[in-house]
């Protein structure tokens, strides 16, 4: 296979949610001299962007998106170690997680995938994340983006505790905070001192890109 064919195969592997193909064609890309960054941007990420668009139009649903994400990460695991150091240095770090007391993480995982596809180096803290873990993550990981989600009303206040903790330890000004989840809104983000609110993964990527 030639370079363009391999890129198309990577794109298709993500769209069809075929992780095995994603891994196979990522290896093939490297063996055929395709640059890792090119394979990521013009193969995997291109496919994930199409998946995101189809999800927004309700042509794809969560199963397809989750399989596509798994396929994307399969390819990334092969390709990322081959990106030159100066290439990785340019990647902005983001930390992401579901706030303490909540275990609904599908939305968070989709946002993580789309932000990864947008070029960020996402550090996933998972679900039911204690406030102090979020607060400490900014300095520890060198994050410029902090993304938090919750699907439940009673756990929303945990987001404010994180913002307050960052103010207290002096890291608030170094990070942009974005929140999401069904009960949240931009007025709530304003209330708690977060920078942004997004209603879905596409909007999250758009808003994060605007502040990079």
């Amino acid at each position: 296979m030639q370079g363009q064919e391999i890129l198309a195969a990577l794109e298709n592997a993500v769209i069809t949610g075929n992780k095995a193909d994603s891994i196979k064609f990522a290896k093939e890309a490297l063996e055929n001299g395709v640059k890792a960054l090119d394979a990521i941007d013009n193969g995997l990420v291109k496919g994930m962007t199409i998946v995101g668009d189809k999800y927004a139009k309700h042509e794809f649903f969560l199963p397809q998106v989750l399989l596509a994400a798994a396929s994307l990460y399969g390819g990334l695991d092969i390709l990322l170690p081959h990106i030159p150091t100066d290439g990785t240095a340019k990647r902005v770090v983001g930390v992401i997680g579901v706030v303490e007391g909540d275990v609904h993480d599908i939305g968070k995982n989709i946002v993580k995938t789309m932000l990864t596809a947008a070029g960020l180096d996402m550090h996933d803290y998972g679900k039911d994340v204690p406030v102090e873990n979020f607060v400490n993550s900014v300095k520890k990981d060198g994050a410029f983006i902090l993304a938090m989600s919750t699907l439940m009303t009673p756990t929303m206040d945990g987001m404010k505790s994180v913002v307050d903790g960052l103010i207290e330890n002096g890291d608030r000004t170094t990070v942009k905070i974005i929140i999401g989840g069904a009960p949240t809104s931009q007025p709530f983000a304003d209330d708690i001192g977060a920078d942004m609110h997004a209603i879905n993964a596409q909007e999250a990527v758009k808003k994060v890109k605007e502040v990079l």
Partner: protein
Amino acid sequence: MTEKMTHIERVLASLGDQPVDRLTVYPIACGVSRRTIGDGTMLYKDWCSDPKNYAQGLISGQKYFDLDLTVGLMDLSVIAGDFGSHVRMDEQNTPFVDDPVIKGPEDYEKLQAPDINKGRSGVILEGTKIFADALKNETITSGFLEGPLLALTQSASAEKVFMDMYNNRSAVHKALGTFTEYLRDMVKGMGQSKPAACMWDYLWASYSCLGDNEYDEFEGQYKYAGGLNELVGKEGMALAIHNCADLPHLDTQIKAMKPAAYTMAYYPLIPGSPSASEVIGKGYADNCVVCGNIDPQGYVRWSQEKMQKTTMNLCQEVKTALCARGLKSKYCIASGCEVPPSVTTRLENIKTMVDTVKQYGQVTC
């Protein structure tokens, strides 16, 4: 405030689209109702693990808030917990599964259905009998059960199940079959508890989660939800469905499943999320009492003034839409999802919502 109709008269009239003295009202105040017992300090874990406490909370809440309906919603980790998942039981809030019983593909087929009379399923059955009996002359009562796909996603994590719909399709169906059999027994048990209705939580029927084909294959079809819905009728209960998702499958869940009542939420920020007037205008309330859609966080975060204004606005929107559609009463002013059971929920906001409907819920076309 003296009212012209009793709760039961009003709900029955609404079900038949007959004139009512005012719209029916039902904030889905279930776990939070434990705070209306005694000095208000009962812990959630004590409420949800003892049938007497569970029933007492619902009975006391009905009287305290003067509710038209009573629904026995507990939380969504009941069946998963009874099947062996570990449930983290916070003292004052909704418990959740923190260690699902299904960890790998092979676990779908190993599921063993427990005795329905043990665990928290048993609490629900016994407690439903108590509150249904105690309130039978006061309100229309409904039991509450998780649908098979919800029970499965709680037992395995939704992400795993959604991916396994394609990666391990037959295993997922096997597990759904196990849950459905269990739920058939639960419906029969619920029938013996004699609530007027049985409400299913079928929340994955949302276009932000599943398409029509996937929902039909993995829950909607006769083998699963279709047969369970039919059994509800055979056991002498009216069918009700709860779905607080953002983009519900209304054609499937209202027009095809034909519930007597359907409770739903409204997400104004989500494009396509249907408002009360849109739902009524498109005919979904023609043969079903649609219940919605006060934002549940309002019970925690809003002032009483904001709750009153929001409820007034919803009443006006609903009345206008009902009249435009030629309907008299087929909408219940309700919360879009359960009123948060946490200690930060403002009980006065629940009362304000109910009182506002009493004051502004008269339908005169």
